[in-house]
């Protein structure tokens, strides 16, 4: 009954919204632009020394130069490969373990307690230990990303499965659906909203882990680009690196949100009309 009442309430709200929303969006662009202009003015006026923080125009020019000569693309590819490998390993582990713990009582007893305990360790603090275990090479970075991605995804997969309405599972059973069919038609779609939430958090954690990982003994990647630039006091390159990290986070979030909108169309059933 609540599921019916909620969308109805949102439709009445959206009817009045569009005009106000457009104005709000426009208003929200004002202060960031003002900050950029102020930053540029302060740099040109010599208030901000360029070795501490270069002007936005300088950063833009440096970014363009690094893009044009292919440096940025090469380092970006390295960083993306690390992120993808770590996400894949951590993500698959989280899906398998989270689903096992969520679906089977035995799995819950065996898997959940150690994971809950391990969660208390801040995974970025594991760097010294990881260096001892897997060395300072590529595997350390990938392990760090995988660890960062694992926990948020695991908890959301677990909670998503646990929160599924038992009555729907029963209804599916009375429709003659066996275990696999119930997994496909009830459990998976029912856990999907949580899964998407977990994935978004996991990607955020993966970028963060990548930033930390790439600052130790790296020969390539965005983090290396920034650390190297710091040694030569190329502040503009450091700032470009920061913006690349930010853009990566933003872009991955946008992509995920778009696929979420598509996959969870049923939640917006009323609004779509």
């Amino acid at each position, binding site marked *: *009954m609540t599921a*019916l009442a909620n969308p109805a309430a949102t439709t009445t709200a959206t009817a009045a919204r569009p005009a106000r929303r457009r104005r709000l969006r426009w208003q929200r662009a004002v202060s960031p632009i003002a900050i950029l202009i102020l930053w540029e003015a302060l740099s040109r006026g010599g208030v901000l020394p360029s070795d501490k923080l270069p002007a936005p125009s300088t950063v833009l020019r440096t970014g363009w130069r690094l893009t044009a000569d292919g440096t940025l693309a090469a380092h970006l590819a390295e960083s993306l490969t690390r992120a993808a490998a770590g996400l894949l390993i951590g993500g698959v582990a989280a899906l398998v373990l989270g689903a096992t713990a969520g679906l089977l009582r035995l799995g819950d007893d065996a898997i959940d307690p150690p994971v809950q305990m391990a969660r208390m360790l801040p995974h970025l603090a594991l760097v010294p230990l990881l260096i001892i275990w897997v060395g300072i090479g590529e595997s350390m970075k990938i392990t760090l990303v995988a660890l960062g991605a694992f926990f948020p995804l695991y908890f959301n997969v677990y909670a998503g499965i646990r929160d599924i309405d038992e009555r729907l599972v029963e*209804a*599916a059973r009375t429709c*003659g659906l066996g275990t696999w069919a119930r997994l496909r038609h009830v459990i998976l779609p029912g856990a999907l909203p949580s899964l998407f939430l977990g994935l978004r958090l996991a990607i955020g954690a993966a970028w963060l882990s990548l930033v930390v990982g790439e600052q130790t003994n790296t020969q390539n990647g965005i983090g290396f680009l920034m650390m190297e630039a710091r040694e030569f006091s190329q502040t503009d390159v450091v700032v470009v690196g920061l913006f690349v990290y930010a853009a990566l986070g933003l872009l991955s979030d946008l992509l995920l949100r778009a696929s979420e909108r598509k996959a969870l169309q049923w939640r917006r059933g009323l609004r779509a009309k």
Partner: protein
Amino acid sequence: MAARTPGEVTAVVRATGVRRAFGPTVVLDGADLAIAPGEVVALLGGSGSGKSTLLRILAGLDPDATGTVTVPREHAVVFQEHRLMPWKRVADNVGLGITGRDAPGRIATALAEVGLADRARAWPAELSGGQSQRVAFARALVREPRVLLLDEPFGALDALTRLRMQDLFGRLRDRHGFAALLVTHDVEEALLLADRALVLEGGRIADEVTVDLDRPRDPDQPGFGPLRRRLLDRLGVPLGRSFE
């Protein structure tokens, strides 16, 4: 319709000595029940009398019950709540677990029968309570059940929608000839729809009333009142007092 007495050899549903306890509370204490092919049986009882528990046992949803239960494979359940998958469109909800080339045709027919042919592409969240329950009926019908198990299927609907749904149920039953067990707390509903009404009390079937009224039925028709009185009296008896 042919056979109305429990214990008939041709019974399509049969339960013998069904027991179920939740901790120290014994809810069903050796309940017996038989439904003939095409017969609609109403199961009445106060709240907590175990009537929904008995239906769940017949539906195969309660592995902890004891006793003997025979229910054909071709059975379907309609619950008090529609229990549609919110992530499936109406047609896909109806067709849940239905395979084969003729599936789309069967789904369309079932939806047309409940008057929702034009809502096949809708999401459950876009439907009203009555429409959702009609989809739940279509989901049951598309399986061509020999037995329908109904757990207060009209209980969550408003009075007007309930009347329409009871009417729809009567028509569907005439067309398909399924047998049904209708769990309800509404004596009038039982008398309007059922061929026989059972009263569950103290964990057993305590009373049985054959509803021999002409169809279409109406609460004002002769014979309705006395049956209603009798059932209400039966349900109003405080536990422990005996009529025997």
